[in-house]
């Protein structure tokens, strides 16, 4: 399957009064055509920064220190700002965690979507309005013609998120980045939004990069998963393999630490804390918390290596076979 976006060795650094922080460190992954890739990690693991970096929206005090982002044969890191402005919103779109604050309170919901058609597809006002109503219907907003004339404050949180999705998909982007799209929503609303994403991806031909800290969301929605820890990608696998045969020690600990509704099992919190990104250890960033750590882990950084078809892990212990397959 072709890759829509290929991220290679991406590094993003932030300057602070205490020194430079490597928020993302040599991250490599790809999003394939028609799939939903989950990017999982705790707060501070660098997932949102990665999304911002793909859109080339990193600004001072941050900078893109290294790496390439291939989209349709072009490296986004080499493009000029005006070329990027054309790509943002048309080929790559993003929805975020707080849909209501992303909407302009002064214009109607319909206008939010119609403007995109007018701007990017050059359609007439009447035609844009018509297409906007179609998009609102596509994302499941009842009575779309009437609601298109309403304003953001008249919509509930879940509806606002649907509007955001409509705006994102209006231009038929190749990649939709969904940054914690359900974190601020109620359980039942969140479930419906995820259903919507699952359905619309294939329908509009968009691949989705779904960023979340919730493994439950990943399990129900994604086909492949990349796990991030302290700015590094530690494991990439198809979703079933990730949950049934987690390889990286962090992934294993993560799976065991979640409270579950379907079973009575003991929760084990992940030992230790995420290392400070200011005094970054030289080797593997999980070394301070890993039960299988050895001397080499502290000095050298492991790279992603394939352990099964489509399943790669960055861990010396796994490479050496010291960690038994689950």
């Amino acid at each position, binding site marked *: 399957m072709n890759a829509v976006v290929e991220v290679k060795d991406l590094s993003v650094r932030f300057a602070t009064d205490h020194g430079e922080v490597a928020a993302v460190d040599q991250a490599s992954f790809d999003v394939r055509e028609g799939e939903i890739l989950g990017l999982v990690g705790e707060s501070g693991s660098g997932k949102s920064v990665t999304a911002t970096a793909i859109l080339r929206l990193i600004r001072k005090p941050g900078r893109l220190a290294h790496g390439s982002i291939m989209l349709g044969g072009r490296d986004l890191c080499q493009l000029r700002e005006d070329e990027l402005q054309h790509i943002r919103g048309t080929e790559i779109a993003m929805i975020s965690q707080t849909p209501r604050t992303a909407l302009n309170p002064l214009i109607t919901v319909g206008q939010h979507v119609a403007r995109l058609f007018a701007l990017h597809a050059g359609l007439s006002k009447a035609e844009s309005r018509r297409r906007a109503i179609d998009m609102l219907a596509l994302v499941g907003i009842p009575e779309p013609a009437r609601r298109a004339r309403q304003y953001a404050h008249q919509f509930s949180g879940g509806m606002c998120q649907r509007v955001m999705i409509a705006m994102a998909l209006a231009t038929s982007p190749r990649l939709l980045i969904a940054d914690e799209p359900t974190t601020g929503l109620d359980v039942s609303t969140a479930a419906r939004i995820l259903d919507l994403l699952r359905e619309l991806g294939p329908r509009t031909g968009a691949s989705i990069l779904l960023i979340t800290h919730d493994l439950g969301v990943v399990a129900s929605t994604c086909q492949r998963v990349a796990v991030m820890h302290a700015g590094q990608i530690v494991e990439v696998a198809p979703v079933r393999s990730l949950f049934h045969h987690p390889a990286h020690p962090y992934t294993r600990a993560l799976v065991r630490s979640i*409270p579950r509704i379907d079973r009575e099992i003991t929760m084990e919190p992940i030992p230790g804390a995420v290392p400070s990104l200011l005094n970054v250890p030289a080797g593997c960033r999980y070394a301070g918390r890993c039960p299988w750590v050895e001397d080499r882990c502290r000095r050298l950084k492991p790279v992603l290596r394939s352990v099964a078809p489509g399943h790669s892990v960055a861990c010396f212990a796994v490479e050496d076979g010291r960690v038994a397959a689950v």
Partner: protein
Amino acid sequence: MSPLCEVDDIKVHFALRGSAAWLRALKDGKPAVVRAVDGVSISIDPGSMLGLVGESGCGKSTVARALVRLVRPTAGSIRFDGTELTSLSDDEFNKIRPNLQMVFQDPAASLNPRLSVRRVVEEPIKLHTELSAAERRERAEAVLEEVGLGADLADRYPHELSGGQCQRVNIARALVTNPRLIVLDEPTSALDVSLRARVILLLEELRQRHGLSYLFISHDLASVRYLASRVAVMYLGVIVEEASRAELFDHPAHPYTRALLAAVPVPDPDAKRDPFVLSGEIPSPIDIPTGCRLRTRCPLAQPVCAEPVPIREVAPGHFAACHLV
């Protein structure tokens, strides 16, 4: 064993103000009122935990706030340790406060950005006891230790702490006066799923060690499942189901509970999801449907659901408010 805290049929109604409300009142023939809590009765036994679950807008936070007098109930009674709270004056209530504390939802927003951790935790001691400065310091440090924060963090400010650490400070502050009941308003919702385990285990440990009671309010059903002995489900201001933990999660009676449980994402890609789904959106608390409040969205709705539905015992210790059960 008599309950530590008994809430009896409380109602919290907010009158709407402004010209729009006035016009609406003219139209409807009655004053426009938000019925945030519309007749809720719960009881918490000493040393136990009651989970109160529901989605946003159901009124669970308002129940919590009513208990600690951040909001006054419009009707009903709240009895704590035998004392009727609603009839106390502000000064008298203040004397009870050390026994009845609260942990809020947003860990960072619940801490004054200008106070160090030490000052935050020492404040309740200062307000309610006569301990000297040195004794206060000692007690504060002891409590911080208990919640897993070392003494070196005591002089930090909230913005220097992570979300999980802020939440621990909140818990320390609630714990420092040796309360009997702690109301926890969504204590894990602002935390990453992987951090929730720590906080949940800490809460359980503290509860057992100090014999505390909790009112645990949440929409995170998985966390509630771990901690609670009994669970009550709220929708649009009323309780629709109440049962022991095992009963509620294994044999939910009310359709709303079923829909909630079906919507929680399970970290297992092969899990079969119960396709029970509610249609539409939550009605506004100003315009509550008559009869069963869920009937506008329930896939099982029947004509009888337009009749008022009282909460009944459908199995021993298991209560539900549904005509069809």
